[in-house]
């Protein structure tokens, strides 16, 4: 059972730890605005997408069968990866910019809360990573959702927007501080051009962190954008030669899976508090599987996590989660 539990955690924690705050706000408010519903609608869409992305990569590149792998399976997995990649690309190119130096965290939080009701009916819509806004263009956080209408992965709920139009990314501010150094670290591990995924990760974590460090001026976007742009052409290379050549020629040629999953990244900014979860209505008391893990990790406590809490997903905490899930 631990096996089911730990791997998905390990995979996305690295990337999405920073996002937790966003989700926590989101979920906390969802509880107020929308009546909680069971099922996958509560799960962070991007969390699930990331997990599936990683699983797909593992499938393609981690096993070396003696016989030729099934072409049908390869094609289906490739299609899955392409779809996710396409989504990431769309989100990456339309992401608005983030906090300016003058924005304190709280007003940001408030303005964010104001934005929530607009999101409420989009509960099932994909949550864009780091849709943080400056107070002025509140619509910016609504904007990406409107794009979701065109996104192939929209759920059946149609987006009812009045207003929001696509805003061009506001002017970028110079990057400073420990963020950019952290970003640099990540970039080192992923030799340029990096994948949009790693970039998205970096951008998100950086962005979220800015909420915690309002004194620091903005963000990472400048780093993020050029990276993602250069990464795009590479990523958009259709999966090369998977079908004809059995040795793995990379989907992400310069970036191996190990870089994403097991890189030694400074995790101090990946705030994560796995133990504060009340498992809530959404969890099932059943043997843990990947699906259930996704469900239970989403509705975390709405308490804001203290900044710079070291991120550790060690066995004791895992055990604790298991108890909570399986117990009662």
């Amino acid at each position, binding site marked *: 059972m631990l096996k089911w539990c730990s791997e998905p955690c390990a995979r996305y924690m690295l990337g999405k730890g920073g996002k937790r705050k966003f989700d926590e706000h989101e979920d906390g408010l969802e509880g107020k605005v929308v009546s909680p519903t069971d099922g996958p609608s509560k799960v962070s869409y991007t969390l699930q997408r990331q997990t599936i992305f990683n699983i797909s990569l593992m*499938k393609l590149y981690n096993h070396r069968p003696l016989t030729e792998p099934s072409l049908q399976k390869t094609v*289906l997995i*490739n299609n899955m990866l392409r779809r996710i990649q396409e989504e990431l690309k769309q989100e990456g190119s339309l992401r608005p910019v983030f906090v300016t130096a003058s924005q304190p965290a709280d007003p940001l939080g408030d303005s964010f809360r104001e934005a929530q009701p607009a999101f409420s009916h989009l509960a099932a819509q994909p949550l864009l990573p780091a849709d943080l806004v400056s107070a002025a263009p509140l619509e910016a956080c609504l904007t990406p959702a409107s794009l979701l209408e065109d996104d192939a992965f929209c759920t*059946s709920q149609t987006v009812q927007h009045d207003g929001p139009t696509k805003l061009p990314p506001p002017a970028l501010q110079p990057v400073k501080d420990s963020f950019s150094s952290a970003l640099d670290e990540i970039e080192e591990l992923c030799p340029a051009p990096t994948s949009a995924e790693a970039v998205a990760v970096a951008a998100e974590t950086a962005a979220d962190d800015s909420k915690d460090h309002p004194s620091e001026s903005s963000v990472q976007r400048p780093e993020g954008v050029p990276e993602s742009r250069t990464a795009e052409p590479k990523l958009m290379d259709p999966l090369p030669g998977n079908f004809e050549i059995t040795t793995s020629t990379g989907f992400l040629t310069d970036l191996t899976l190990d870089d994403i999953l097991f890189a030694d990244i400074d995790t101090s900014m990946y705030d994560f508090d796995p133990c504060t979860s009340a498992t809530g209505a959404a969890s099932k008391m059943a043997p843990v599987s*990947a*699906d259930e893990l996704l469900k239970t990790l989403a509705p975390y406590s709405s308490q804001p996590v203290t900044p710079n809490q070291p991120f550790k997903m060690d066995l004791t905490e895992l055990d604790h989660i298991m108890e909570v899930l399986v117990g009662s």
Partner: protein
Amino acid sequence: MEGESIYEVDSGDGLGADIISTVEFNHTGELLATGDKGGRVVIFQREPESKNEPYSQGEYNVYSTFQSHEPEFDYLKSLEIEEKINKIKWLPQQNAAHSLLSTNDKTIKLWKITERDKRPEGYNLKDEEGKLKDLSTVTSLQVPVLKPMDLMVEVTPRRIFANGHTYHVNSISVNSDCETYMSADDLRINLWHLAITDRSFNIVDIKPANMEDLTEVITASEFHPHHCNLFVYSSSKGSLRLCDMRASALCDKHSKLYEEPEDPSNRSFFSEIISSVSDVKFSHSGRYMLTRDYLTVKVWDLNMETKPVETYQVHDYLRSKLCSLYENDCIFDKFECAWNGSDSVIMTGAYNNFFRMFDRNTKRDVTLEASRESSKPRAILKPRRVCVGGKRRKDDISVDSLDFTKKILHTAWHPTENIIAIAATNNLYIFQDKVNSEMH
């Protein structure tokens, strides 16, 4: 349904029983062929009804076993070619011999099965053991006579259809003209003449110019049972294409495209994968097609392309588990489906050694289990139920205790009677419906 016989397909090489990979009745139902992962074919024959025991309808006993395919090595790609038998199809019987086609990933073979129950005795020049006689001992001439002997079943390879496929062969289908057959791999379908092995005609080719653009593969195909010019093939995107060979030599352009628009409320990351059709079968009447995708079986009317006329949920409780099933690869399992002789009942396999039957007329369905405990001879199969939380009755199985390693991928239904053959990993179960019981 009564449990009748269980056979364990033993490879005989000391390694234990092998996983059954295909099951097929012949056109009369007298013979049942199974292929396994080790490249062997085992043929069962139904004993004629005995007058002494009128209630014991014929049982199936092993008739012949032979090694159809051997593992090969592709030196160009440095990969093994599996000897696993993907499909067996019987030819209609035209004389005393039986013939079948068996295929692995690359090569199709035509086997002829003959019986010998007499042998000539009394040769003039040879003695009983076949050695030449010393001519000086021959004093008179005799006419050799045929004397009965123990039944011997001889299987000989008559044709080997090799080098026709770059990709893995997933289906073969004999045409109603009894002269040609088709073989389909992931990207191409070839038409062969049964007597010609060095040539085949390519009738469908969906390989894109640039392999990197590949997003869809062929998953199954079959000839129409009555119209020798029509065939259908299914794709990994859930569509069916009916093609007419009279229209053009290369049938890339379909005559009819059967596709059901996606249900937006069920949209998920896995929508495409679970829509991939794993099997397609024409009804005996030729009016309908049966398809199996991961969660449903669907009946299509050949005259209606927009949606199936009937959809049956096989195991919808798996819908919330798709991520786990993707992770452990179960979502790629290819289940087959089958019609009964009168096209009124359809059958397909599931997990936990369960298989399902749907009565199209009464709209009732039943879940049965193929297991040793429930299949003692003459034991009646008890319907099973999978509970999805909520009230749980006794004997129900919960979704979380299903064994996903016990999958019933291959099933076959006797062409005229209510006898079914179920392959559960390395065991073959044969069930008979002695009384025409209703589905419940």
